[in-house]
């Protein structure tokens, strides 16, 4: 394929990935890598380099809209970013030492989890026991509710922090935002309200990805000719997707997306196992 055919094709695939990622809340990065490797035979290291770059673009591009709504908590974000960026450094170092077959296998497993979690709806907000650490680091906050500002307290800060380190490691290892895991750490473990969790997670994704981007760059994973249509495509797709969020039949879409991601997961696992 010549560049004049390849570049628009990659742009199109990335735009679809970005659109679906925004509509389902999973992020475009998690689908773009399997699409590039499975459909176009791109080496997984080039694919995760390009995907990581697109993750920074969508996170930063969407942050503005979220901040305006007043849900994200900048202190929780910064506090947990220490964990995610350290994890991302570890992940990026591991990525340069891990055989591509193993990378595909892990990617497949992460996709399986994404398929499963996207087929479920949003969980209920449950309050838990307040953690003294949350008080000390001023993590408790409030968000605009139906009847004025609603306060919330944060629980199990240490467990949440540890899980965030894991999310960062996966992000650096696979070039994804690992937003799903970040939301689990905040929403399920730390009992932060779902909306605050998702918007704060989106805010953190860009910083987490930037931590591994430097290492990817120095190892030659970020190939400009491939990263350019991926970054632009995912960005355009996710911006359109974010606008369409209201009114779209998200439930049907979730199921279609979950099925597609599930198929990709199995393909990634098979192709990974073949290389071992």
């Amino acid at each position, binding site marked *: *394929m*010549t*560049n*004049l055919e*390849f*570049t628009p094709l990659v742009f199109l695939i990335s735009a679809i990935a970005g659109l679906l990622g925004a509509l389902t809340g999973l992020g475009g990065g998690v689908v773009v890598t399997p699409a590039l490797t499975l459909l*176009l*035979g*791109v*080496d997984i290291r080039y694919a995760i380099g390009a995907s990581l*770059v697109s993750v*920074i*673009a969508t*996170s*930063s*591009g969407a*942050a*503005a809209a*979220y*901040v*305006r709504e*007043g849900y994200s908590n*900048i*202190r929780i974000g*910064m*506090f947990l*970013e*220490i964990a995610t*960026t*350290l994890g*991302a*450094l570890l992940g*990026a170092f591991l990525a340069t030492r891990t055989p*591509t077959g193993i990378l595909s296998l892990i990617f497949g497993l992460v996709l399986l989890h994404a398929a499963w979690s996207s087929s479920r709806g949003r969980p209920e907000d449950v309050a838990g026991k307040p953690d003294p650490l949350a008080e000390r*680091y*001023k993590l408790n906050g409030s968000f605009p509710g139906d009847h004025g500002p609603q306060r919330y307290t944060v629980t199990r800060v240490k467990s949440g922090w540890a899980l965030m380190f894991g999310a960062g490691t996966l992000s650096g290892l696979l070039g994804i935002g690992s937003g799903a895991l970040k939301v689990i750490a905040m929403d399920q473990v730390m009992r932060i309200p779902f909306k605050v969790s998702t918007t704060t997670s989106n805010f953190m994704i*860009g*910083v987490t*990805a*930037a*931590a*591994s*981007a*430097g*290492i990817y*760059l*120095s*190892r*030659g*994973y*970020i*190939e*400009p*000719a491939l*990263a*350019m*249509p991926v*970054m*632009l495509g995912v*960005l355009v797709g996710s911006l359109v997707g974010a606008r369409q969020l209201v009114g779209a039949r998200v439930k049907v879409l979730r199921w279609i997306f979950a099925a597609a991601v599930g198929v990709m997961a199995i393909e990634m696992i098979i192709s990974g196992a073949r290389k071992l």
Partner: protein
Amino acid sequence: MSTWNDERLEKIVSGLLIAGVLLSALVVFSGAICFCVRHGGELADYRAFHGTSEKYRSISGIMSTARPSDCRGIVQLGLLLLILTPIARVAFSMAAFALERDRTYVVLTAIVLVILLYSLVVAH
């Protein structure tokens, strides 16, 4: 009266992020047009991993290659701007926490900033 609060900080941060993404997307796009015009007929093959050219792997290399004669260098400059965007956001947050006289968060933010700069500068 405190003019610095988290709300105002978040508003400025969001503007910073948007500006960074738009600027980098613009640079990447112009590099992409340049690339398609000049190298459109060449074969695209990323099946085997060789790693991108050494000159596109460091800040100094990118700064010296990003000119109209090197389309991929222009794209890489745009991507570098993109990587710098969240880092700028963290640096800005640190300054804002300092203005809020929140010493704990100045320290926490400084740690994040050091990790980010380590990846970009030292890890080479």
